[in-house]
């Protein structure tokens, strides 16, 4: 047994747990990322799973993966390629072979690399590594299945139940490889299976045995240490984007002192928002699973009419169904937060894969001149901030707000410093009884604040302010239905101006990098981490480049034009065919410096590709 084990310090590492949908890879990945975060590392995760719940065992389309990148610092995304792949079967190896770095470790289960397993993954030779030309990696074969079984012998578990713990055995090996303390993992397992003590014991046993196995035989010549970050003092937790979105709504309702209401319908990848909020009856949250997407938004709009902070959560196909009701929210000028967790389209597309292809739908997908606020979240934790902001703007400016997140940040998680809500602004809805100075009898439902053009909110149950609103055009003064041509033109203008005015209530656009550079990278939404890392690496290479990332899309921050016009080239990078680039060009027609970088693959950007492409463009190639 070798004893001269070397511990190597590294800055970052990307690990992918991969296997069948039923192999528990999401759990191994989540545990590893959480314990790394608790250990003090920065983390970014990317669950990449198939749409099928349980595809045929060992098949290529049944491969489920969980990628986690951990580091001492500067972890902005879940990483392009993997340093370590855990492959529970040959299909997992095949699907992930292209993402392996040179010299990377492939930990595989020799028990499930038999002839029949190779056949299922459509290998034609007995050596899958050679067949995939993987001569640049270090394969480490471990009999994970049989060792898990012997580890749990006498545990009283059925054979099938024992096998379920093989993900923990594999995780144990990875924990050894990266010097992760097992106590944290044990504690997490105790929480996870608190109602099934037998499973807690079995999983901890398999995990420990996996760890000891790695340690005893020194599976590799070196293990790795990634130092804890020196992040700001305070309390932390880890959170994924969907949970953070739900939290942002709860926090905003608390700040505004209003009831939170969610009307929703299950849809991948947005369902977790509904599932989180139905749990929060302890906060008095009213979250309803409705009969369809339309009922999701219309019940919300009803709740908004009745005085709630009302939201609905969905993905692209659901947003399409909600269009008409969104128009009604625009027309009636009621506060409403619509969360679109974007996924690949059109139609059903690739439900579990992420894209930024709903921007046009969010901006324009309604009949009539129908302006509203569009905000995009940049990262899992930014979902909290943007959900809070969406709520603030909706409630204070009496408008529907579409919050765009995406499958990547919705399912991905990172460490999150628990916010102190005293640092957040109070939210003050324009209640008619507080704002309208005069005889209640003189008040009309579409009288407005002169500066902001926001109408006052008269909530059912409030004496003296009974009124009727609806989808028909109203006279701007009396609030009575009107088809007068001049009035309609003015109302169209007022509704537009009201949204434009919100630019005065949001922060200015900021710039990262070298403001004297020729090239500016522009992004929005969930690509932030990849674009930031690409920018920083180009800067570190001694080249001049700047980067700006938009969270507020409609309206744009006030300084947007001045910021964009100062650069020779503006490269708008997005996961669609150029929707934000086209939007910027239409908002600022005299800008002639806009170029596009687009990928629509349903996968996150690759930093290496971004660097290559940006550099080429910068060098005029």
């Amino acid at each position: 047994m070798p004893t001269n084990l070397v511990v190597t310090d590294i800055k970052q590492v990307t690990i992918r747990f991969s296997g069948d949908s039923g192999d528990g890879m999401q759990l191994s990945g989540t545990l590893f990322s959480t314990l790394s975060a608790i250990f003090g590392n920065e983390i970014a995760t990317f669950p990449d799973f198939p749409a099928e719940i349980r595809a045929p065992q060992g098949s290529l389309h049944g491969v489920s993966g969980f990628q986690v990148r951990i580091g001492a610092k500067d972890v902005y995304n879940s990483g392009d390629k993997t340093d370590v792949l855990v492959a529970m079967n040959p299909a997992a190896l095949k699907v992930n072979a292209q993402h392996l770095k040179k010299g990377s470790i492939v930990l595989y289960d020799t028990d499930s690399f038999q002839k029949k397993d190779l056949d299922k993954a459509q290998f034609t030779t007995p050596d899958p590594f050679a067949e995939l030309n993987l001569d640049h990696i270090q394969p480490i074969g471990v009999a994970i299945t049989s060792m898990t079984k012997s580890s749990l012998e006498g545990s009283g578990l059925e054979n099938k139940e024992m096998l379920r713990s093989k993900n923990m055995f594999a995780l144990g090996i990875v924990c050894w490889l990266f010097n992760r303390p097992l106590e944290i993992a044990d504690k997490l397992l105790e929480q996870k299976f608190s109602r099934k003590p037998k499973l807690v014991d079995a999983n901890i046993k398999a995990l420990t045995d996996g760890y000891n196995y790695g340690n005893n035989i020194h599976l590799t010549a070196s293990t790795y240490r990634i130092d804890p970050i020196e992040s700001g003092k305070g309390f932390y937790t880890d959170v994924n984007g969907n949970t953070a979105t739900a939290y942002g709504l709860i926090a905003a309702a608390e700040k505004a002192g209003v009831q939170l209401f969610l009307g929703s319908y299950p849809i991948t990848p947005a369902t977790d928002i509904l599932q989180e909020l139905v749990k929060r009856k302890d906060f008095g949250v009213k979250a309803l699973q409705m009969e369809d997407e339309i009922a999701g938004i219309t019940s919300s709009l009803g709740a908004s009419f009745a005085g709630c902070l009302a939201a609905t959560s969905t993905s692209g196909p659901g947003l399409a169904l909600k269009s008409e009701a969104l128009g009604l929210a625009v027309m009636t000028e009621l506060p409403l937060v619509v969360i679109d967790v974007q996924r690949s389209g059109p139609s059903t597309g690739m439900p579990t894969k992420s894209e930024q292809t709903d921007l046009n739908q969010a901006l324009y997908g309604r009949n009539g001149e129908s302006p509203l606020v569009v905000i995009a979240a940049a990262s899992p934790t930014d979902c909290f901030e943007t959900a809070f902001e969406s709520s603030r703007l909706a409630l204070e400016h009496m408008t529907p707000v579409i919050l765009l997140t995406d499958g990547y940040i919705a399912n991905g998680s990172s460490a999150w410093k628990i916010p102190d809500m005293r640092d957040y602004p109070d939210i003050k809805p324009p209640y008619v009884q507080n704002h309208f100075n005069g005889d209640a009898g003189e008040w009309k439902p579409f009288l407005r604040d002169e500066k902001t053009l926001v109408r006052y909110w008269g909530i059912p149950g409030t004496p003296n302010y009974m009124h009727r609103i609806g989808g028909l055009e109203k006279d701007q003064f009396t609030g009575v239905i009107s088809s007068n041509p001049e009035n309609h033109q003015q109302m169209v203008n007022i509704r537009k101006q009201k949204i434009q005015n919100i630019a005065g209530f949001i922060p200015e656009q900021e710039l990262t990098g070298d403001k004297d550079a020729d090239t500016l990278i522009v992004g929005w939404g969930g690509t932030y981490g990849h674009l930031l890392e690409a920018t920083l690496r180009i800067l570190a290479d001694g080249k001049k480049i700047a980067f700006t990332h938009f969270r507020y899309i409609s309206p744009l921050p006030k300084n947007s034009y001045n910021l964009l016009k100062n650069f020779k080239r503006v490269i708008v990078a997005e996961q669609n065919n150029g929707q934000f680039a086209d939007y910027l060009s239409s908002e600022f027609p005299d800008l002639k410096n806009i170029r596009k970088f687009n990928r629509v693959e349903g996968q996150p950007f690759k930093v290496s590709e971004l660097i290559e492409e940006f550099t080429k463009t910068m060098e005029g190639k």
Partner: protein
Amino acid sequence: MEATEIKYQKHLAKDYKSENAVRWCPGCGDYAILTCLHKALAELNLEPHDTAVISGIGCSSRLPYYMNTYGFHSIHGRATAIATGVKVANPALSVWVATGDGDSLAIGGNHFIHAIRRNVDINIILFNNKIYGLTKGQYSPTSSRGFVSKSSPYGTIEDPFRPAELCFGARGTFFARAIDVDMKNQVEVMVEAARHKGTSVIEVLQNCVIFNDGIHNKISDRSWKADNTVTLKQGEKMLYGKENDKGIVLDGWNLKGVTIGEDGYTLDDVLVHDATTRDNTLHLKLALMESTDGLPVALGVIRNVDEPSYERDYEKQIEEAQKNAPRKSFTEFLLKSSNVWEVK
């Protein structure tokens, strides 16, 4: 001596009337429905500001504009879903839906049945004129097979929905029927509907004077009404006819209209109405009676059953959750959740 109920009426019918000029066609049945709703609200002593009237699209759905309450004229078919949101958000409000046969049974069919299934405490007034009026005369989901209209020049080749069947199919707890011209019965069923805790469906047989004039004549016209309708009252015998000499009896598994004193039928044979039985079999039979089968059309409250209402159960769950976990601030909640660590 019987105790006399002393009633103090805070509001008059006119208090629920908005200043907007009513713009339905002259002679439209909607006028009567509107007036009845004003009267019913006054009788219920409801504060106008605690009342919300929600509607979809169509002639019927203009109704909220004529109410001095909170009102929301929304989009086609969605009123019941919006009303669900309003009621759950604030259970203290009295929530009404004004809708038509196209609005609630065609484009809004899904919301209609699911609101009923949930039994959320809203009162749905379904104006059934068996035609699309606002789009000028197309057949609706309640038009009879063979009905000739602008969109069915050769006659429809589809069978209609009967609203009661949908309501009972969705496990409805309250169903009533009224005729637009019969204002007394209409006000009564509206009051009953409001008192019922759960979804109430009131089907009002309403005349479209322009596109489907006289569609309900056989039952609404004075000369036939007495013989062709029966007004059901809780605990009373199902009697009808000009001389009140006809009654509904059970004949095997079926209902039958008979004349008392003929064919050996006596008053004892006539059924007594009970709207409160959980089993809806007889309610459905009563609701589907038609003159073509020799039976009068049933009016009044046909079914009125007490079951848990959605918004009340929602409040209960919240109360229980808060009892078990005392309310904390959002930051406290996060700090006490799992996976929290401190960086010192």
